[in-house]
């Protein structure tokens, strides 16, 4: 289990690093090609936007794992340790609710509709449905990390944290 989670973390981080590199190269090439080639690259604008969607959504799961999303914890800090534990669990359940309905269910439906109707992006000719797969994938990761957070909340020894 621990190895599997470690693998998912590594895979996620690796994807994000490559995606950032991809955006950078695409836009730099967009500028260079305008001057070097008679015919400037016409796909880079779309390519960089699509990778940005991936970085933005998928990265949010990584940021959630790192606990770096912005929140408002002034009130929760005033609660007793036991109530805090319960409150934080409820928060994780709400995150699971959102991820399940919007990212997984809504995202999956969006992928299905755009794939079924064979919607093609304007300059890359990529299926829009493939771009949108980032939504359900991120949904699964959010649920996974939420479950890990709940597990970590309720086990006594921090050494066993996942």
């Amino acid at each position, binding site marked *: 289990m621990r190895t599997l989670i470690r693998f998912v973390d590594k895979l996620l981080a690796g994807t994000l690093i490559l995606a950032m590199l991809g955006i950078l190269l695409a836009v730099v090439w967009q500028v260079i090609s305008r001057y070097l080639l008679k015919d400037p690259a016409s796909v880079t604008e779309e390519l960089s936007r699509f990778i940005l969607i991936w970085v933005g959504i998928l990265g949010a799961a990584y940021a959630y794992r790192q606990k770096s999303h912005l929140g408002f914890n002034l009130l929760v800090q005033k609660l007793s340790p036991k109530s805090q534990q319960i409150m934080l669990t409820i928060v994780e359940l709400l995150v699971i609710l959102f991820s399940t309905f919007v990212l997984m269910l809504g995202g999956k439906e969006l992928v299905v*509709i755009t794939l079924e109707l064979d919607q093609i992006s*304007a300059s890359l000719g990529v299926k829009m449905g493939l771009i949108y797969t980032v939504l359900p994938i991120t949904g699964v990761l959010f649920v996974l990390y939420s479950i890990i957070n709940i597990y970590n909340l309720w086990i006594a020894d921090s050494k066993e944290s996942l």
Partner: protein
Amino acid sequence: SDHLVLRLGHTLDTQHSVHKAMERLGDRLDYYSRGQMKLEIFPGSQLGTEREMVELLQIGSLDMTKVSASPLEGFAPAMKIFSIPYVFRDNTHFWKVLNSDIGTELLTGIEAFRLKGLGYYDAGSRSFYTNEKPIHTPKDLVGLKIRVLNSPTAVQTVRAMGAAATPVSWGELYTALQQGVVDGAENNPPSYFLSKHYEIARYYSLDEHTSVPDILLCSLRTWNQLTEQQQDWLAKAMSDSVIYQRELWQQSTKESLQKVIDDGVEVIYPDKQAFVDAVTPFHESLADTPAGKLMRKIKAM
């Protein structure tokens, strides 16, 4: 409630003739249905971009939207016919085709994509405007960076005429023209005027290479939920709105051209034949494709 409200989103501002025609559509719908059907309009991209609103129609959370036929190419390939230059001889020919079986078939063709095409609005003809030097012949376009719509056919069209097609998003275009990231763009007179691009691109060359109509779409999910009576009211209101918009468009084109001329823009009427000749190889390269076959049918009309 006692009446049905249809929600219509679009990307234009409220000055645009298409917005005014949609208001007329709402009035006529109210009139024909005796207040049982109403239209609520959301202008200015409040609900999303054109492509995104088409998706919302397919999803079923928005009832209607207006879309240019050009980005519709991504959904319905037959629509690419409008992005090919000089398919239509003139405005009369253009409307003859749209009002014929070809126009109807193009609209019914998109029903496979969960969309119901209600009708065409006039969006005139697109012509080049440039910031450094005027365009008199296709030769003047060689080496210029021209902003194009994000559509493969639009890119091929501009390339066929000798320019370097450069996709720039609509929001960045004013600054891109001003700073010389692109040397020019192309659009119809009202858009050239309303977008204020005439302030920096001072040469407008009316070569009228493409005529891309606007299409009013209804979600097929919404359409199928309407009774036959309600569908009939909507269709009648739409045809009133289309007639009204074509009048407004003519007027708006004339006024826009007059206003840019008054502002000192150099409007050029080039010899169109030279441009038609320049795209002949492009037309020939399409010969064996479905678009090429459709093009031959249209040219024969």
